């Protein structure tokens, strides 16, 4: 029973913390770029504002356009319920293993791309095309990363992977997981519309990908999509922690004290990861669109290399 309570609270925690994480990254970026930073809770203010507005829908928008934000948000919520961010004692984690998780992200991507094409504007379909291009290059790379982890742990279930690393901490120093880790960071950047693939703060029309897709959305629909994209970043960060830095995550049968410690650990890791992300984004320039495939091919090859290294060395 307590497991179910933790299942729900972990999911709610992810939903609640995701905007905070986005706010933290934004704040770090502002500091690094010598700008005065918006408050940490800026994303919550944005959500509040958006939820209160009247939705302005394009005249030709169909039901798919209105349905997509709910679907995208829900897939991210379900993904958050599956990823062991605080505890591995999750009854729902077995519903979908890591491969299914990648599938869930793909479902969200396909829905948002379809919604972008729905109104039939030039930018919408351009964004959808680019998003799907990034997607079909990033998805195999992500799967390869997970396969490397599978080879090491012998399981595609994320909780098992967490427990595997906690049992034998030296595993993360294996060369195969090192390659996988680098590839994972590259995929994270590409999939979450971060620099150097896409610029989250751009409205420069010809370079945008994610922004181009949600251009026609407003009010509650936009709020859900923004929230979903923050949740996606949060989820990716938590997958990364689960695979490579699982320390602090509470195991089966942990008491409330350990769980509180686990939450503190997640917060600390997110703070560091957010700052690192902001630093990386400040230091890198956006790639031309057709350099992005090279970036992702590199991620894919690194991940495949990790797999090969594992098969050769057994480590």
């Amino acid at each position: 029973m307590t497991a179910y309570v933790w299942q729900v609270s972990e999911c709610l925690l992810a939903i609640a913390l995701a905007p905070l994480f986005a706010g933290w990254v934004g704040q770090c970026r502002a500091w690094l770029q010598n700008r005065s930073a918006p408050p940490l809770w800026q994303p919550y203010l944005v959500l509040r504002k958006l939820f209160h507005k009247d939705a302005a829908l394009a005249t030709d928008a169909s039901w798919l356009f209105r349905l997509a934000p709910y679907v995208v948000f829900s897939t991210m919520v379900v993904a958050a319920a599956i990823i062991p961010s605080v505890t591995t004692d999750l009854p729902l984690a077995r519903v979908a293993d890591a491969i299914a998780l990648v599938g869930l992200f793909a479902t969200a991507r396909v829905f948002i791309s379809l919604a972008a094409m729905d109104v039939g504007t030039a930018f919408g379909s351009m964004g959808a095309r680019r998003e799907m291009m990034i997607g079909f290059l990033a998805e195999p790379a992500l799967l390869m990363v997970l396969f490397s982890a599978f080879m090491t742990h012998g399981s595609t279930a994320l909780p098992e992977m967490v427990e595997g690393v906690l049992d034998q901490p030296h595993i993360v120093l294996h060369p195969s997981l090192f390659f996988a880790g680098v590839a994972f960071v590259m995929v994270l950047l590409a999939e979450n519309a971060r620099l150097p693939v896409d610029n989250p703060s751009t409205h420069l029309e010809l370079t945008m990908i994610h922004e181009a897709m949600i251009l026609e959305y407003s009010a509650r629909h936009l709020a859900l999509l923004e929230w979903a994209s923050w949740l996606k970043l949060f989820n990716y960060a938590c997958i990364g922690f689960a695979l490579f830095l699982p320390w602090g995550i509470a195991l089966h049968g942990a008491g409330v004290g350990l769980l509180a410690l686990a939450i503190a650990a997640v917060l600390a890791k997110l703070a560091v990861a957010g700052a690192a992300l902001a630093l990386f984004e400040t230091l890198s320039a956006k790639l031309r669109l057709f350099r992005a495939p090279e970036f992702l091919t590199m991620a894919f090859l690194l991940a495949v290399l990790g797999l090969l290294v594992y098969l050769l060395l057994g480590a």
Partner: protein
Amino acid sequence: MNLASALATITPLTALLFLVASWLSIGALGLVQPNRIGWVARTLFPLGALVALAVAAMGAMSLLPGFAVQRAVLALGLPNMPFHVRLDALSGFFLLLLGSAGAGISIFAAGYFRQGEGTAPGLLCLQYHVFLASMAMVVLADDAYLFMVAWETMALSSYFLVVTQHRIPEIRRAGFLYLLMAHVGALGILLSFGVLQGGSWQMTFDAMRAAQLTPAWASAAFALALFGFGAKAGLVPLHVWLPEAHPAAPSPVSAMMSALMLKIGVYGLLRVSWDLLHAGPWWWGLLTLGLGLGTALYGAIFAAVQTDMKRLLAYSSIENIGLIFAGMGLALLCRSFDMRLLAALALAATLIHAFNHAFFKSLLFLVTGSVMHATGERSLGKLGGLIRYMPWVAALALIGSLAIAGLPPLNGFVSEWLLLQAFLQTPRIPHAFLNMIVPLGAALVALTAALAGYVMVKFYGVVFLGQPRERALEHAHDAGWLERLGLAWLALGCILIGMFPQAALDVVGRITLQLVGTAVRRGPSPWWMTPVTSSQTSYSGLWLWVGLLLAIGATFALVRRIYHGRVRRTPPWDCGYPWQTPRMQDSSEGFGQPVRHLFGPVFRMQRELPAPSDSKPHYHVQVQEHLWHRLYLPLARLVQRTAERVTILQGGRLSTYLLYSFMTLILLLVWVL
């Protein structure tokens, strides 16, 4: 004998033979009043659908635990070569596939076929049902003779269906190419059976099972079968007929060919390689796996750049067939190292994928039929925005598109997941080279699956979303109720298999038990799929559905309840640009551009770019396959040239011919003496 005891003697096999006969008679009844659409389409096709459902039920019965293999000898065929039929789990599974997907197609066809489209409806009805019946007979056949007769009937009836609109020259050409490839493939199969009988000159499959072939001959039989069945299934480089024949045929026929007939090719190879040859050395598996993976990637890349919606789906079929062959190759590979559980897993993934593909691909082909009837257009460049005019078709097509893109929680994901799980277990293969190279196949499977998502966003987005690209599209109408019913049946299949994957795994477990000797590991609960061990991996389609629906419902309720549902309709924003026209959206060429760019060398492209000074700028791009120009055309020229040389022998003078006969006689005499 009273009725009850008479009924008790009916076995599934006799019932199936009766059902096949009723398909044939339904077809023949079409000739009674060949031009009355009310009779042919509204009466006979629904009857055919009922028969299909019965076939599916009989097929399902053979998959029940405790079913014993049934055989019979028919009083048909040559005097001392009667037809043998046999029903086992493998044929039962393919009958289930044929019947359940075929029922949906037949219901749709009942609403689809109309007058004035080439062949008279009655004749079409005959060809259609002969096609269905011949596919059922291929699956039931238990000797090479009946198999080849049914196989050729299948090829010929489908040829006539492809050239329904025979007045159009392109369609006649496509039909010819199909017929040619079908016969080249059939030759391979015939030769393979010739090798398989192993000197016993018995044509029954029982004799072939018992025949002791040397490894070299067994490999020859396998290679010939791979060639023959690969040509039917659409394995690269034998796939060239698919993108020509599928667009040429009427949509229900394309659906049948793609969803059902390609699977019969898969069945043939399964029957020969697993049942008749009892699997073989590891390189059979590696060859099949390599060809399959290559085919899958090739199909996906080409599907992404197509501009005709049926050609796009044809290439997507090639991709899926590639995945099916990859799974089959992996199973053969594992079987050769006696890793039976893993072989069973790969084979289960293969079979479930074949079943899934039958459902979503027929759904999408039928959707193109509805779109063509509503708009008269097949080219993606002239469609768009149909979700507003055809809401039913659009909603059902969305299910099919998501399923074929391999997205959870639908059925396409289930088989893809199983296939990836099988690949992940391959490092345990006790062979130093293979256990390194084979896991990398998972990378190709992942890339193919991701590309399939791209292709389906393109297909669905360009056809159903956006602004209509032509004025005439605004008069498009939704499909009739029979068509919708057919589509809904197939969509329901996609959802149900996605929800209850363990049930599908249990069903194909009967076949893996027959062919590999073991079934995939089964968890304690029917709602969870745990094919390896429960700690290693698990997936529950049902719970994922519940979770997603709950999350969507809760989000919707909270957002609408706490805040409001107020909506204002405005013109599209598009960064403040007010002069939007439908021409500014991505065309299908535009959407495929990243793939054309990334995989440039794979395509043979002819591009006409506009000059800066053009008053009417015009852009034209045509994408073709290298294979056609580098392999098929040279081959055709070679055949042509050889034929010309051979004609020298035929001088047309009687005396020369007499000389030939005389020379032959002398030679024979010399040889005998």
